[in-house]
């Protein structure tokens, strides 16, 4: 009964490769997010979708492309991986902001290591 799940948990790959991370939530939320957490633990929002519509698109390289096939899924595809992409990537979901319980629920994270 995992609320927000991500696969894979670990991803080790060579520079220049293309990889995808998948995220699914079973909380019935209509908003999902991708975050990047660097080695200093700083959290950076990358993208957010609300009901399959892109609503946050922060300044990230266009090698990163999110895709939301439905409101329960948000995937992240990364082309031409670079060393600096090494980080932990978190998926999160929430109900619409402004509701009484609109906090974000996080997945377990995907630790990406680019060699």
């Amino acid at each position: 009964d995992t609320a927000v799940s991500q696969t894979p948990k670990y991803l080790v790959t060579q520079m220049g490769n293309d990889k995808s991370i998948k995220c699914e939530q079973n909380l019935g939320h209509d908003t999902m997010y991708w975050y990047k957490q660097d080695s200093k633990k700083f959290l950076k929002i990358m993208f957010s979708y609300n009901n399959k519509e892109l609503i946050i698109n922060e300044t990230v390289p266009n090698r990163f492309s999110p895709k939301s096939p439905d409101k329960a899924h948000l995937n992240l595809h990364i082309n031409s991986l670079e060393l600096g992409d090494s980080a932990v990537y978190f998926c999160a979901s929430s109900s619409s902001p402004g509701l009484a319980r609109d906090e974000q629920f996080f997945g377990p994270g995907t630790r990406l290591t680019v060699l």
Partner: protein
Amino acid sequence: ELKVEQNPLFLSMQEGKNYTIYCNYSTTSDRLYWYRQDPGKSLESLFVLLSNGAVKQEGRLMASLDTKARLSTLHITAAVHDLSATYFCAVNFDSNYQLIWGAGTKLIIKP
């Protein structure tokens, strides 16, 4: 500019002591969140503070929100080793979808 600042960024303390983590933010908001992250783990929601004067307590942790001062505090009472973690505050400005995150406070509690 929307900013959220936490201090201290690192705190080492002895078990049994009390301490407070501060979260200041740059402009009006009445929605603030506290999260906990254990090493190598995900982020776990601790508290949701929705209005001025809101106070929430869970065990040895108590969070409060003063929207006029643009300040939230996370108070730890009689700390125990199990509370060692990194604590983040995050602010929602104007009921937006985007949270602005603090840098996190790494808390180490020594037995």
